[in-house]
């Protein structure tokens, strides 16, 4: 009897079932709050023709950027992909497709995917190249475009603390896209810094209820910093 215990024992088990051609939704913003080790496991598995939905594509040599090295990514759905030389090369060479999506629309598409909302209207992108080919409709005198939800075969998520039921708490701004990603995967895999006793998390302060989580694994993280900015003490 497994009950609600979502803990798995290895990264290989965590990503079991991932196949060529699948769509993966990934949490994280820049290098902050990214599922580092789940990404490494995808590289290790070597699956190809992947569609990755993530606000960014990591950097050269870290984060989702490492999946470019063996050309595992067919298509990225992102709002900003400017931190990555290899990305640029593969894009210019026509080896990589990119579907640019405004950041807020991307977040809302993931949320909608998890929440059973197939599509919604937004003013974001109306009158721009992003609105081209999309239905335009007026509400209360303003024009909006129709945007459809996103779901994935897998969602990969990084949280701070979890209990064995998969209830999650995120740390600081490492929350970002992770909660929405968690709702939008057919299989949602989460790696965390700490697994706490059941009952140790305050029910009202759980960011992601365990119902969204299928597999949970304890990891250790490099947490690379992209822009190290400081002031004098």
């Amino acid at each position, binding site marked *: 009897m497994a009950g609600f215990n979502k803990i798995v024992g290895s990264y290989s088990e965590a990503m079991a079932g991932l196949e060529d051609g699948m769509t993966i939704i990934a949490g994280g*913003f*820049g*290098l*902050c*709050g990214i599922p580092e080790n789940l990404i490494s496991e995808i590289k290790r598995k070597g699956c190809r023709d992947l569609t990755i939905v993530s*606000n960014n594509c990591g950097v050269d040599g870290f984060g989702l950027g490492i999946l470019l090295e063996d050309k595992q990514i067919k298509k990225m759905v*992102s*709002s*900003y*992909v*400017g931190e990555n030389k290899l990305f*640029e090369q593969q*894009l*210019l060479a026509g080896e990589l497709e*990119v579907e*640019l999506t*405004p*950041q*807020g*629309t*991307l*977040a*809302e598409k*993931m*949320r909608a995917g998890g929440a059973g909302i197939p599509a919604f209207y*937004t*003013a*974001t*992108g*109306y*009158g*721009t*190249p*992003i609105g081209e080919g999309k239905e335009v409709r007026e509400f209360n005198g303003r024009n909006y475009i129709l945007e459809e939800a996103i779901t994935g075969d897998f969602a990969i998520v990084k949280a*701070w603390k979890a209990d064995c039921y998969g209830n999650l708490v995120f*740390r*600081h*701004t*490492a*929350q*970002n*896209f*992770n*909660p*929405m990603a968690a709702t939008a995967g057919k299989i949602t895999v989460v790696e965390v810094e700490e697994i706490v006793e059941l009952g140790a998390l305050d029910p009202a302060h759980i*960011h992601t209820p365990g119902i969204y989580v299928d597999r949970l694994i304890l990891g250790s993280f490099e*947490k*690379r*910093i*992209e*822009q*190290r*900015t*400081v*002031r*004098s*003490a």
Partner: protein
Amino acid sequence: MALTREQLAQRVARELQDGYYVNLGIGIPTLVANYVPKGIEVMLQSENGLLGMGPFPTEDEIDADMINAGKQTVTAAKGASIFSSAESFAMIRGGHVDLTVLGAFEVDVAGNIASWMIPGKLIKGMGGAMDLVAGADNIIVTMTHASKHGESKLLTKCSLPLTGAGCIKKVVTDLAYIEIADNKFWLKERAPGVSVDDIIRLTEGELVVPDVVPEMTF
């Protein structure tokens, strides 16, 4: 003399009001935070999920899990809240942010803005800019008045792909403070020592020039 980056930020900062929730874009807009007028309080929203952005951390305070939308390490100010990207853009899209300041390549008399894509150059993406311009009622664009080659960035019609349509009402350039209404640019202030003629020459879109154009002071 054209305004320096710091002066641009200073001029923009005069538009801040007490109690404003403000989103500052990357570049010159970020500098605005250094010039908040005395006696007023503003809170900075960072679209990756932070309301109440504080100063950069000291070496000891650096935390990889605490960054802003420019991916810089930051701190949270007292009274800050932290939330998901969906919540952050609900806030932005829903018009709850009082002021957004961002840069641009071009602005036109219809209030259109182009700021994210130059055809033929590599596209990096719009990030949150399209959401920000669609969501805020009150947007200030900061940019140089003309390109390095002397081509106006204040146009009859934007030539580059748009970031947002009909959403810009205020522009602070290195030469002037300009408002947009009724399909015209309205010259409101000029940079110290910059002549009205220079501004007219470098403004391609229709510009309404009043009899007196006050000079900015710093």
